[in-house]
């Protein structure tokens, strides 16, 4: 397999959207700075989110059968909060210094929004390619939400 094409956003024939993406525009609740055309954003944790795996295996199988969309579901983990962010003052960047991630109801991590030293391209297998493998750049992300500290206990908010 000597060569795999990596499509860029303008080299593709059709406007590319990530697989499973909604067909209609969805409201993006993140601060403007973190919003990207495709809606994708990066969140880095010095931790792991554990989700039950027994179900996961079953679902992987159904994904192979092309049923991914119908079986997809979301499990709530917590809440993201940008306490100093105000939509009325988007140019002020001081809000980037503080982000909270509540895990469940009683734990909170404090992090920040960081500009990536080098932008990151998000690559994905191109949907609808049969036989040959093709990749595409679905987004270029320039910021990440970064949590490097351990969770601290908090009261229910």
């Amino acid at each position, binding site marked *: 397999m*000597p060569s795999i094409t990596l499509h*860029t956003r303008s080299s593709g024939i059709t406007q590319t959207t990530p697989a499973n993406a909604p067909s209609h525009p969805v409201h993006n609740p*993140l601060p403007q700075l973190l919003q990207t055309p495709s809606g994708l954003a*990066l969140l*880095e944790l010095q931790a792991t989110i554990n989700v039950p795996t027994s179900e996961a295996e079953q679902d*992987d199988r159904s994904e192979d059968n092309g049923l991914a969309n119908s079986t997809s579901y*979301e499990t709530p983990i917590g809440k993201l909060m940008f306490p*100093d962010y105000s939509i009325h003052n988007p140019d002020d960047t001081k809000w980037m210094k503080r982000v909270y991630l509540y895990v469940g109801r009683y734990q909170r991590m404090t992090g920040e929004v960081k500009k990536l030293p080098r932008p990151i391209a998000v*690559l994905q297998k191109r949907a609808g390619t049969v036989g040959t493998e093709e990749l595409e750049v679905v987004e270029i992300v320039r910021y990440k939400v970064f949590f490097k500290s351990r969770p601290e206990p908090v009261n229910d908010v």
Partner: protein
Amino acid sequence: MATQDSRSILFTNTHPQQGFRLLELTPELEALLSSKDAPALELKSPSAALARAVVDPSAPEYVNLCTPTQTYRIRQVQSSNSLHILRPSLGQISRADIKVVEEEAGESGTLNLPDEAVTAIAKCGSTLELHVPPGGFSAVPFLEKSLGLYEKRSGDDDGDIAMDESSNGAGALGPAETRQMRDRVLVDVPVSSAQCEAGWTEICAFVDEEQGVCWRPSARMRLNVWKRLMEGAILQGIDLEKQFLVGDLWKSVLDDDDASEPFPRALLEAVARRLCVEDERPSLADEIKWASFDKAECTQWVGEIYLAATAPTPSSATGRSDFLREWKDCLPESWRDEVALSKLQPGSYQSPDPTTICFVEPSQRQQVSKTSAAAPAAAAKAKTTRNWHELLKNQKRR
């Protein structure tokens, strides 16, 4: 300070997760990808046979990212942190589950669903980083392994006529087929197409249209082509330094009374393309119709080719004064004054003893220049770097 309008955004995990890869971009690549008409890129790795023939000591298996002109080595960097890819939620959340994060969500909680939610759709434990090794990337080592060596002795004419006859039935290849033949070779060469083209031109590789084979001519063959074309040019009064028709040069190479061709026309064109001044050189896809040669560049090339053909190793070294005389004899009368050892590329030759000279292969040449250039570069880097690994590494070495 938290204010009233700071909102809570529900954070969920989507199942099943999707597969993504994160690729750290260099500034040039970012500019390229952000441009309006960004070209498609390629991930290239050598064919299994080529990977065995051209061993990269730094990585047994690798993938290169190629833009039309640039090549980057991809390195997978593991991270102990997990990077999640988020996107706005589609609202496929069971309201019962929200109790985990909010007691009274859905009725009187502060969360407004499903608008105010993001969801993690993928987790990446590693990112892909790009780097370019100090020597850069070249197609030449790969082409040297994948193309057959084109070598013909001068007394070989009978054999060649027989070969021509046997292939007459198949007919010559057209430009499109020629291109296909070339592309089939280049697809396995893991560098950008511009670098593939530069390497192909550098070694005068060509597609034999009669036999349908891609070749790289030996140094002796290239020297023969040069001698023939120079003699032809002198006879026909073609000034190689001014623009001339490559077709005229080909005619001048053919003997009037002998119908057989001394070598394929494609080989002459490959040599003309190699020697053509760079800003007049057409791309490989286009036929080379016009060309003009640069005296200094030609002289240097002929000198190196002559040395490569006659004294390729220290054991076959030739006398210096003999070499200089032969070199002069390979050039048109008016170019003879150009000849001097200093005109050869530094490192392209060595002297086993004070009176002799021999050729140094480009692959070995690079190692010499790398080791000599690496030390000051590393010292300069150590001054600017804040990475203590590098600081300590260099201190130990000194």
